[in-house]
């Protein structure tokens, strides 16, 4: 199968909406508003934290609340000078969403949160562990969740569904990291 036809190609996986059996995005958004726009999304790798953050950013924009996203990872650093200019230019009505705050050291993380809480309306961070901010939700995964995502990605495709035993096996081998599970399924379909 060609990469552009693979149902698990990255543009399709990135477009999948956040799924949780406990809360809808709307419920989580309402909770975030009730928490005075200060919260953290917690969870291990590949549990949908960034997906949820992106959807909350869209929801804020649709409510005309300016949302500013900071994305930090190994290849996209957030240097001290970038941090200074970001904090200097931030609008007081905006809500800042930080993806990858764990990449910053303790001191810079602490200083960023302190500055943002003084200078803007709200903060939502994505973290692998508990932070100083109250937890909005703890993202988890399960074989059932993976099954639902696979069904979504295979819908409208004339491809057979993978059996539950295989989904369970992939889920266990990747320790519940949904992103890695979907990456393996890309390879599975690439060989078809």
């Amino acid at each position: 199968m060609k990469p552009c036809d693979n149902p698990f190609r990255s543009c399709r996986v990135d477009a999948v909406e956040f799924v949780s059996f406990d809360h809808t995005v709307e419920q989580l958004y309402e909770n975030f508003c009730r928490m005075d726009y200060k919260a953290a999304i917690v969870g291990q790798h590949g549990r949908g934290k960034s997906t949820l953050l992106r959807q909350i950013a869209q929801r804020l924009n649709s409510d005309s609340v300016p949302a500013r996203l900071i994305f930090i990872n190994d290849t996209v650093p957030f240097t001290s000078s970038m941090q200074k200019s970001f904090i200097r230019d931030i609008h007081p009505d905006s809500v800042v969403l930080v993806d990858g705050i764990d990449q910053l050291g303790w001191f810079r993380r602490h200083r960023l949160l302190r500055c943002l809480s003084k200078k803007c309306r709200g903060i939502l961070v994505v973290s692998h562990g508990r932070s100083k901010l109250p937890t909005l939700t703890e993202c988890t995964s399960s074989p059932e969740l993976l099954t639902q995502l696979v069904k979504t990605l295979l819908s409208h495709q004339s491809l057979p569904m993978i059996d539950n035993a295989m989904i369970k096996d992939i889920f266990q081998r990747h320790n519940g990291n949904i992103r890695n599970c979907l990456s393996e399924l890309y390879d599975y379909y690439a060989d078809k």
Partner: protein
Amino acid sequence: MNPQIHIEFDNDQRAYQPGGVVDGTVRWQLDKTPERLELFLFWHTSGKGTNDVSVIDSRVYENVLVSDEERFSFTLPQGPYSFSGKLITLQWSLELTVIPKGITVRKIITLSPSGSEITLKETYFPKQKKSFGFKRTR
């Protein structure tokens, strides 16, 4: 009436050599006079990992009628070629968008010296046998 937009290529040609010229016509039949129409020539990748996109050329059609047509001509660069491997596919496309409606039509073309998409195959590299003993040096 449903709005209709089309990209048509001269002689229905879809495969081009590097440096070749893409000639054609864009046609539209809308329910309201648009602000403008934009036509983009670009390549993009899809598959596993980050998607890349690069716009090579564009045309903007302003002060247009509700139903009309315009000719276009783009000279293609020398590369990259259209190809498909296990991890990514690189495709060349022309995309026409109606502003502000956001209606879009996209047509895929092929850019390669052979005129067809290049297929990358996995290559098997056998392990080289290690020579036993010492190499004689002068």
